[in-house]
């Protein structure tokens, strides 16, 4: 038998039918749904008189619109409330489980799938959200889809999909201290560019990746879409299996044994061929800060805002000129001299318990800089409860940060958590696009520890230098 990649194995096991000249029909094991990209899909089903084929393979939550200042929809604007009500009605009518606002399992769709034990290795997972790649951390083929495809999957439990190319991103060596999964992802994006992985499914390999916790793996896979990749994935190992065991929907008893046996086959065979391989030397990575308006536009915190003229490619040069004008930055400015108004800790990229622990460890015994606002938004209701049980909320509050309720929040600012024009934010989220966090807002993407360090100093600082300085009461 020919050597196959992890992706090949999952693909082959999910092809329902493949007709010559047509994209394959792939079976979908889990369909995650949220309030923003689903109403038109349910409406489409109604117009055509179609029903949801497998409600048990669909799970819904509310995350994009939910206010973070109250546990229910209170405080949301009229249209957001209507959108959330519509989701609840659609789920009720179709027999779909909905962990909506106020539910103990509510949260960002890419946080709750894994924490409920629904995200499993070897599955095909879709969601009307581009950061679905997150679930690939478990060795699943997980991809974001549009609303028409959401409707298609609801009606057929299948997805039409041309077979993507495969790309290996191999991370060699050892990460320096203080360098996180977020810095690794930003470093990869800087190396391959915003369209570097278009048309490809990326498999992350190498010792660094398998040394990562599941939370770190999710951060890495989450950002695959920012390089244009259709999905990111990591072969499951003991860390994966330990994470899943005993979660609410994880398989049990003999099904657990069967699942673990199946998962042990889920790795790329020796000699399996990828269409492309990129190798990253972990030792070259540093705590990283984006300076532009794409996640690929970044430099180490020890660096400076680049001169657009330094880019050889004309499109990159143009893009840098625009980005610096939007961001209000001058070429040559040291990154450490950039002062901040707001710090946002949260999102499907970095809103999990480990992210909160890491940031809290930096903030413990320190204070958020005068005049700076810091929002801490847990990724789910379960993360929030766990953080409170560990006393992290007290650390954030004592430092002067705001401890909020779970949701997407300021990652995309669909709820009231937005930046004002010209405000500058260090954010642990995934996109620094123009206006992403609020019209005219200026976003710099960083890791949770770098965000916490910046909150203390009021400007960017290498978190490792802050550690050396010791806690200041």
């Amino acid at each position: 038998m020919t050597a196959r990649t992890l992706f090949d194995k999952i693909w082959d096991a999910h092809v329902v039918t493949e007709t010559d000249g047509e994209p394959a029909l792939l079976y979908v094991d889990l369909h995650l749904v949220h309030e923003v990209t689903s109403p038109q899909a349910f409406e489409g089903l109604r117009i055509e008189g179609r029903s949801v084929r497998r409600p048990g393979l669909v799970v819904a939550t509310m995350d994009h619109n939910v206010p973070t200042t109250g546990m229910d929809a209170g405080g949301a604007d009229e249209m957001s409330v209507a959108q959330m009500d519509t989701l609840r009605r659609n789920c009720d009518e179709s027999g779909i489980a909905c962990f909506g606002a106020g539910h103990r399992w509510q949260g960002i769709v890419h946080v709750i799938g894994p924490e409920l034990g629904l995200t499993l290795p070897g599955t095909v997972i879709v969601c009307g959200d581009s950061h679905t790649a997150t679930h690939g951390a478990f060795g699943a083929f997980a991809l974001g889809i549009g609303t028409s495809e959401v409707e298609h999957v609801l009606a057929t439990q299948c997805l039409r999909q041309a077979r993507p190319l495969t790309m290996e991103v191999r991370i060699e060596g050892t990460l320096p201290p203080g360098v996180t999964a977020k810095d690794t992802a930003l470093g990869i994006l800087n190396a391959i560019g915003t369209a570097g992985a278009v048309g490809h499914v990326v498999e992350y390999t190498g010792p660094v990746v398998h040394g990562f916790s599941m939370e770190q793996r999710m951060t890495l896979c989450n950002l695959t879409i920012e390089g244009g990749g259709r999905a990111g994935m990591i072969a499951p190992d003991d860390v994966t299996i330990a994470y899943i065991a005993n979660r609410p929907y994880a398989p049990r008893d003999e099904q657990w044994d069967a699942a673990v046996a199946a998962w042990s086959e889920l790795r790329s065979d020796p000699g399996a061929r990828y269409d492309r391989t990129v190798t990253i030397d972990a030792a070259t990575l540093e705590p990283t800060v984006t300076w532009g308006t794409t996640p690929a536009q970044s430099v180490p915190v020890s660096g400076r805002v680049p001169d657009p003229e330094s880019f050889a490619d004309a499109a990159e040069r143009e893009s840098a000129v625009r980005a610096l004008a939007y961001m209000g930055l001058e070429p040559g400015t040291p990154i450490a001299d950039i002062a901040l108004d707001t710090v946002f800790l949260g999102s499907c990229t970095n809103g999990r318990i480990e992210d909160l622990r890491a940031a809290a460890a930096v903030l413990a015994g320190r204070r958020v800089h005068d005049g700076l606002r810091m929002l801490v938004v847990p990724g789910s209701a379960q993360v929030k409860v766990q953080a409170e049980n560990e006393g992290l909320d007290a650390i954030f509050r004592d430092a002067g940060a705001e401890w909020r309720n779970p949701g997407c929040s300021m990652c995309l600012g669909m709820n009231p958590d937005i930046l004002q024009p010209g405000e500058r934010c260090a954010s642990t989220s995934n996109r620094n696009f123009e206006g992403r966090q609020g019209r005219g807002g200026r976003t710099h993407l960083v890791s949770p520890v770098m965000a916490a360090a910046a909150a203390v100093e009021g400007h960017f600082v290498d978190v490792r230098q802050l550690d050396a300085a010791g806690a200041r009461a």
Partner: protein
Amino acid sequence: MRPFQREEGVLVPLDRSDVDTDQIIPKQFLKRIERNGYGEFLFNDWRRDATGAPRPDFVLNQEEYRSGTVLVTGRNFGCGSSREHAVWALADHGIRAVISESFGDIFSTNALGSGLVPVPLPEHEVRALIDLATEQPGITVAVDLVTETVTCGDLRFGFRLDPFVRKRLLEGLDDISLTLDHEAAITAFEAQRPAWMPDLSRAGASV
């Protein structure tokens, strides 16, 4: 789906790369539960200033381009968020085809599903079209899916779409109906799925 055979209309140059879907339709307009009515919010933050007044320097606010139906733009158009609202906004504004060197994967799929054609051309051909549309404002272009050609002034370029995708667009076929033709295969596939796969409807599943 509305079929697409040929579109002849004004070519609109948007000379920048990595135009993400947050720019095509900013998030404050994603709260509607309908599929239509997004056209007026297309490129909102570029088209209007903070007070809502039109910005005269933006291409769609210029008289010659206002009624354009084909957009030509830099690489990686439609990257970022999966929001299909970006496609609905373009289509609602009257845009029927977008020409670029490359597109975000999800945007491309969304566009094809809604009858908006993403036309891939090499960088130098995209550049030639942007330059021509800039030098001769209001020039018309023809995007022909039957012959798979783009014609504008003296320029004539060929392009290729996946044959299945092209057929669907030409005939305006409904994707879900096509899939439901495979009902027997889907049912057979379901019968042999491993029992450990997630299923919230299964007896004993937690809620």
